[in-house]
């Protein structure tokens, strides 16, 4: 099957790359010679391969994807203009269901971001070498997802131009009256701004050595000037490298509790209320597990497409996809366990309202949403117990799409189903999404993919220096090992 490529005609590959395939070598990589990259590319090969999309004209596939994504952005802008002009009555909200699709989207996108930080920070602390090929794109995904997420609470305000009221600014124009620091909604503002800032700084810090490498590859011109400005004069000094690694470790140490705190705080928007379905103490860990699960689902979707279209199978191997699948299986199991705990808690606690809510969740008018959630988050990941499924790209692609759908519906079920039948039957109502609800949802995907497509076109989507380190160590190992005279192509 021919695949629309993201690379133009001049972006064809060297012959040796064609040797690598999805077939994996036997056993896990545990020695430098059996590494997380296929074949034995030299650091120079790594630079050439990763920089190729930046130095060649993009292919038809990239343009088609960009056109679709930009159409989404146009839709988003149009719908937000309509929303601002008309007020939030254009959403399908009503007296009973005051939060719906926009807040679902907010929680969904924040969750998507979590995988990037997990890969770049937590896996760095655990010294997981497989993170090196995928951390850059996952971190970029985090930043774009948080941008999409942060938009929703603001456009949902009714008077978005007064959004700055949530910040404690000086001089305080409201006299001595400050914002309510006890409110989880205020905590959210601090958590998400901190998360976005720290993720952006961490991502940029990781990019600096690669920007310097690109600067030194570029001929004179605009490209060189831009990379020169962004690379801050980096020259590869080991004294700087030594400090750089320490700073990266410190940032990873800070980002790890930060990422856990962000979705915990998002969950408290719900958990600190008294509404059945929201008023649950397991929400923080349950939301964090769900966030990582959904984030890895999105990472898998994006990587499967980009590795193929950008010809990066050598660096993002079937073993990487398998490792991601294992994380999906683990976090999917945690999410399933949380679902079961919620139902058990409702039954065991004997609270009438709680019991009614969970019966309604599974059998009420929104049961189809519940079933989609169970399909995506409980049933779909079960196939990943099979090694053959974890190694099959088509199976993983389908699972990753189901995970994305399932996790969106999980948030919809938590938010809308809890609200549509709360304590008073007189407030019971149905929520029906409007064109504005669906348009803004589709538009947010457009914004996310536009950012991602521009990223893979203009910045290295694989952390070159980290992969060069693996390649360089392999080369040194091969050179020092008398038995390894002939480098072996792992997948050959």
């Amino acid at each position: 099957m021919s695949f629309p490529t993201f690379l133009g005609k001049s972006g064809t590959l060297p012959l040796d790359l064609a040797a690598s395939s999805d077939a994996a070598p036997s056993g896990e990589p545990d020695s430098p010679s059996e590494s997380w990259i296929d074949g034995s590319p030299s650091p120079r090969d790594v630079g050439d391969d990763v920089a190729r999309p930046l130095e060649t004209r993009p292919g038809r596939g990239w343009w088609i994807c960009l056109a679709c994504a930009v159409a989404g952005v146009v839709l988003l802008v149009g719908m937000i203009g309509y929303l601002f002009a008309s007020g939030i009555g254009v959403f399908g909200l009503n007296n009973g269901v005051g939060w719906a699709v926009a807040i679902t989207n907010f929680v969904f996108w924040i969750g998507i971001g979590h995988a990037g930080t997990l890969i770049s920070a937590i896996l760095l602390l655990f010294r997981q070498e497989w993170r090196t090929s995928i951390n850059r794109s996952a971190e970029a995904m985090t930043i774009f997802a948080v941008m999409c997420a942060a938009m929703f609470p603001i456009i949902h305000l009714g008077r978005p131009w007064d959004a700055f009221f949530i910040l404690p600014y000086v001089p305080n124009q409201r006299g001595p009256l400050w914002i309510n620091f006890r409110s989880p909604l205020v905590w959210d503002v601090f958590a998400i701004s901190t998360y976005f800032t720290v993720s952006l700084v961490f991502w940029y810090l990781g990019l600096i050595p690669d920007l310097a490498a690109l600067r030194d590859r570029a001929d004179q011109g605009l490209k060189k000037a831009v990379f020169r400005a962004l690379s801050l004069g980096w020259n590869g000094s080991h004294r700087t490298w030594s400090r750089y690694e320490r700073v990266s470790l410190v940032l990873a140490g800070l980002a790890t509790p930060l990422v856990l705190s962000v979705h915990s705080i998002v969950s408290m928007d719900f958990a600190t209320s008294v509404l059945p379905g929201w008023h649950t103490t397991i929400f923080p860990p349950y939301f964090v597990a769900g966030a990582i699960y959904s984030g890895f689902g999105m990472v898998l979707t994006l990587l499967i497409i980009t590795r193929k279209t950008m010809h990066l199978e050598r660096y993002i191997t079937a073993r990487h996809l398998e490792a991601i699948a294992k994380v999906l299986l683990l976090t999917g199991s945690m999410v399933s366990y949380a679902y079961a705990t919620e139902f058990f808690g409702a039954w065991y606690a004997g609270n009438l309202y709680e019991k009614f809510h969970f019966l309604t969740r599974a059998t009420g008018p929104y049961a189809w949403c519940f079933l989609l959630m169970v399909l995506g988050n409980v049933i779909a990941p079960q196939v990943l117990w099979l090694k053959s499924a974890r190694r099959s790209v088509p199976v993983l692609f389908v699972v990753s799409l189901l995970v994305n759908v399932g996790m969106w519906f999980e948030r919809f079920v938590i938010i809308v189903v809890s609200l549509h039948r709360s304590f008073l039957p007189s407030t019971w109502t149905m929520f029906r999404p409007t064109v504005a609800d669906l348009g803004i949802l589709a538009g947010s995907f457009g914004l996310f993919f536009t950012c991602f497509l521009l990223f893979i076109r203009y910045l290295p989507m694989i952390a070159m220096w980290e992969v060069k380190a693996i390649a360089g160590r392999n080369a040194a190992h091969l050179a020092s090992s008398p038995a390894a005279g002939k480098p072996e192509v792992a997948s050959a």
Partner: protein
Amino acid sequence: MRRRFLVATFLDEGGLAKAILPARKERLRIHDVYAPYPVHALDSLMGIGKTRLPLVTLVAGACGLVFALAFQFYGAVLDWPLNVGGKPDNSTLAFIPIAFELTVLFGALATVAAFFLRARLYPGKREVLPTRGVTEHLFAVVLRRPETPVLLRRAREIMENAGAASVEELEAEL
């Protein structure tokens, strides 16, 4: 300040140890090593101590924590104590999430800023490379150029024996 250096270029990281150890034994001054990625063994080979940048994180993080707690206490208890759902004015536990976030924010930003200052990296700085390719695939051991011809010859010999692809003199502001 412009100084004179001896730059030995290597094609892989294997030769670095072979060059640095004897050079240090001969008391040649190693200015720096340049590499496209961090080579971990170099810290001990070059005798680089641990950076004190994490101290900046600690101090800035502590400042963030104190600032956030103090500010929330000031706003909610001293400046305008407002009854919200009958909760105490000083709801210390409810102040923790924001205090935590600002601890992380201050710590992270200050650490990165301190790193940029210490490593003298700033926007618009023009890079000074000992040789082309050190940010891409080459490695370079840069020695301060020995003053005496005997030591200079010895330095060249050490680098060549370690497998240097080239050994050249350079005058620059590295």
